[in-house]
């Protein structure tokens, strides 16, 4: 490991640890732990959203895919951005209904504790299942960047993530994400500028250089996916799955008021739009500068790093690596706090009223849960091996898209939607995905992604459930918590004498 690498890596670690320490110094309660006391400004939250949203899969993955597969890769990146745009449809409602978690939002709408239970379990599954491939990817990144043994790398990242969450809760998570977001954007911008300088500030030059190695085939569709159906099956769950990702949705609970929600969405839209544009440039640049393919790691996912080395030597590469590392850290931290919220707040605290008695506070419970989940996810990540992570990630997206998205959309936009429908939707989406997984595992056969089928099943479940059991749990009009307190004053009895 070069001194440059160590320098930047240590700085990023020191910086993020400092954030945790600084946010831990102020007094904590559950409100602060889960929702940063709703104290973030719209701009801060917008940056945190993009920090939460841009995973290593986006930064490293999309640029590599663009570099390698051209048009199909671009579509892949565009899906990420499009998926974000869909968040506009649910963000305000989640903010309005939710307190700490996604289950809070659904529960305050339907007032069914079994629905809270189901949502919390689903959140836990999604978050942990997404956490594991992120940790694996982070381990591989650290391995190939810094030359650490993979086991060590995963342990370190798992430990850091656990530390940020357990110590600083949502506050430190948010700030890690904000810092990462700013770093990532400026780094990508800087690299794009250098690319611009190298290609004479002429996009056409870049284009030509990128296309040259393959004789122009890079820009044609169909390099990655054989059929349109395959492309849709990968991209539709990607587009919809983000909307079902609890760790993205809880970010709308950390601001105060719908204005700030909209402002954070605006900020995040600008940041993400800029980012995917830059990533596109970097991806083509990677192709143009010969940074893709065999030179870019075992699966070619390190194209950006290799590009940085081509553009500015080990110094720039070290800096970009550190930023990539921060990216990974920010995302896993966001996932862990969401999983912690589902386990500690929804399941243990609200559903099972645990810990019993009132001598243990929910905050300690949350911290213990964070540590436990962090350890479990880290150990699970050690068991999973490299090539399967892409499959795992897309499976998680399919799962989230199938279970959460139809339920959320129906909840917020369909008046006759019922709690039974919500449960049926979740169950059918989960069932189809799991069934496909089993089938796939037994048959050992490659095939198209189950995405479209699973989402369809989820939507059908919502529809069927609501229509079959309409009376039992009709959607109640939302009740303001203050409604009880605002009863009219009793009028004094009128004497009859």
């Amino acid at each position: 490991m070069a001194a440059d690498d160590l320098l930047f890596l240590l700085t990023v670690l020191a910086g993020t640890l400092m954030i945790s320490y600084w946010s831990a110094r102020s007094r904590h309660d559950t409100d602060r732990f889960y929702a940063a006391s709703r104290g973030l400004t719209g701009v801060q939250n917008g940056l945190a959203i993009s920090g939460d949203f841009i995973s290593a899969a986006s930064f490293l993955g999309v640029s590599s895919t663009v570099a390698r597969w051209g048009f199909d890769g671009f579509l892949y990146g565009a899906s990420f951005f499009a998926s974000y745009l869909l968040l506009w449809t649910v963000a305000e409602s989640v903010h309005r209904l939710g307190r700490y978690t996604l289950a809070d939002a659904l529960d305050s709408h339907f007032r069914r504790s079994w629905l809270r239970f189901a949502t919390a379990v689903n959140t836990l599954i999604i978050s942990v299942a997404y956490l594991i491939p992120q940790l694996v990817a982070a381990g591989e990144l650290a391995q190939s960047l810094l030359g650490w043994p993979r086991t060590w790398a995963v342990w370190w990242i798992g430990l850091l993530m656990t530390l940020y969450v357990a110590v600083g809760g949502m506050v430190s998570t948010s700030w890690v994400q904000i810092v990462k977001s700013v770093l990532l954007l400026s780094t990508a911008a800087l690299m794009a500028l250098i690319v611009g300088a190298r290609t004479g500030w002429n996009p056409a030059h870049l284009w030509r250089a990128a296309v040259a190695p393959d004789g122009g085939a890079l820009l044609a569709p169909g390099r990655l996916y054989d059929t349109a159906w395959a492309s849709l099956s990968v991209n539709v769950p990607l587009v919809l799955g983000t909307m079902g990702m609890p760790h993205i949705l809880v970010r709308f609970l950390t601001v105060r008021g719908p204005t700030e929600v909209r402002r954070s969405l605006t900020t995040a839209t600008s940041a993400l739009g800029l980012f995917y544009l830059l990533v596109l440039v970097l991806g083509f640049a990677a192709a143009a500068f010969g940074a893709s393919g065999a030179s870019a790691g075992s699966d070619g996912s390190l194209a950006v790093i290799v590009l940085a080395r081509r553009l500015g030597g080990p110094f720039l590469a070290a800096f970009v690596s550190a930023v990539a590392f921060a990216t990974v850290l920010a995302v896993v931290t966001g996932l862990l706090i969401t999983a912690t919220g589902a386990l500690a707040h929804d399941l243990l605290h609200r559903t099972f009223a645990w810990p019993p008695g009132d001598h243990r506070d929910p905050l300690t419970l949350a911290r213990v849960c964070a540590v436990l989940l962090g350890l479990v996810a880290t150990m699970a990540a050690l068991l999973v091996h490299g090539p399967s992570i892409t499959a795992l990630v897309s499976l998680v997206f399919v799962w989230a898209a199938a279970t959460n998205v139809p339920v959320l959309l129906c909840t917020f936009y369909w008046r006759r939607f019922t709690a039974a429908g919500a449960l049926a939707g979740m169950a059918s989406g989960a069932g189809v995905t799991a069934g496909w997984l089993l089938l796939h595992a037994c048959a050992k056969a490659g095939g198209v992604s189950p995405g479209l089928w699973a989402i369809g099943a989820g939507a059908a479940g919502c529809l069927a459930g609501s229509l079959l059991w309409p009376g039992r749990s009709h959607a109640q009009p939302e009740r303001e918590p203050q409604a009880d307190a605002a009863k009219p004053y009793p009028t004094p009895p009128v004497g009859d004498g």
Partner: protein
Amino acid sequence: MGALTFVILQRSALLLVAVFALTRIRVFRHLLDPADGIRLRWLDALVFAVFAAAGSELGLDVSLSGQVSHVWHWRPAADALRIGPDVVAIVIAGLLGGPAVGLLAGVLTGGWLLVMGGADPWAGVLTQILAGGLAGLTAHFFADERVLAPHKAVFVGLFAPVLYTGMLLVFTPPGQVEQGIAVVNQIGPPLVIADSLAVGVFSAIVHVARAEEEQATAREMQRALTLVERALSHLRWQLDEPSAQKLAELLMRELRTAAVTVCDRQRLLAHVGKGADHHRPGDPVPEPALRMLLQSGELRTVADRVSLGCSRPDCPLRGAVVVPLHQSGEIAGGVILYVSRARGIRSADIELARGLGKLISRELDVAAAEMLRRTIQDMRLRNLQAQVHPHFLFNTLNLISGLVRIDPDRARRLIVRLGQFLRASLRASEQRLVPLAEELEMAFAYTDIVKARFDDRIVFDWRIDENLPSVLIPPGTLQPLVENSVKHGLSVRPEGGRIQVQIRHAGTGVQVEVRDDGPGFPPDVLYSAGCTDGEIPGGVGLSIVRQRLVALLGAESTLRLANGPHGGAVVWFHLPARAKEGVG
């Protein structure tokens, strides 16, 4: 890498030492406060740009081929990069002053770098501008902190060199890409280490300077509070000459102005300091100052002699701050702080004077309210006292109507005495304090009437010292005591008795004592005799007398009660020599 890091750190240290030395200068420390005026923003940006230029001059020259020159040149060679702590100052400018100051300082420094030349000057220029603006935005982001803590500043400072190397890569001419990358990798890590450390230390220096400045402010505050406390203790009751004199002396001592005047609405009450030869207490207030006081009711500063309105052309006073003092919503007077130089008034002192004026006004209000309270209490007491009289009046009138036929002469004399008595008691309800002699007149008139009524069964024994000092007494004090002795002391002794009134020297004052040979006070009355205030059981009259004495003359003049060694009741009180005339 290590050697280069070390050299750059040394150069940065030179800059930091200079900065530290400059922060010892008070004026400079003021610049470190986030300025809100446009002029100061320019000044701030300029100062930091000068620092940045100095940092650039302290830098090393690194040629594109990687040669490091340790020899100092005014300008870098055409193929050499200036590597120095220049961007450190710009980052600090942004962190302290926000995006505007950072950007401005960056632009100014960029101009300087362009003038100096060297290889790829535009990389440096853009770095300075971007670093200033971005650091400012960062400071905005951490808006809850006035100055970013040094350890956070280190983190921010880290990215300036990365920006610079990135810009170098952008601006490297296409033919020299390989060289450019090599140089970037040569200077990148040392610059990152040196610059981030320098930013941290710079921020720490600013922190220390700020803390000192705040301590100075705290001391100033402490001084102001002490001053106010002392000033208020002088002004317990009202704006008169002695308290004005003390106030003026205090302000003179604490504010160190050329002179201090305290005045009421017409004339000077006190003047201390320069120009005391023609600004004397009792003089009318100079017309312009008076107009300022009475018209605006606000604090005004006067910076020229003419507006000061002093009649003497050789008056050493050149300017003033006129602070009005209010009492009960009206302007009661003012404090004028004079200076001998037109611009000799610090704004901190003006603020202090303004606050002081408000506090003194409030104290005057309190005093006025207190005076009102005492007046009301006094009126209540006099009303109570007036209730005693009707019985006496009817009895006396009955007596006179009886005597008119039997003894017209005596009846006539009695009518005259009654008239005198009534006149005296009328005066008692109008005045607070009267000379003791007048009060004695009233008591004599009363005893004459009583003697007529009781057919000389009562013997009055007046023992009055010669050459008594002139003392004041609340009117209607002595007579009720005598009346009390008559009623309680003699009503049980039909054969009559003896009442002795002694008025004698006691220290510098006078002691008044009334004693009878009746049964004396019952024990429960005596029980309360040790108290200086409060009700006396069974004696409304005595209670009223006691309350008036205490209210008007102070606790040491309270009415004291005892039983004499041979029986009989004794009451006495003390009148101070020079009663606090006009106070109560």
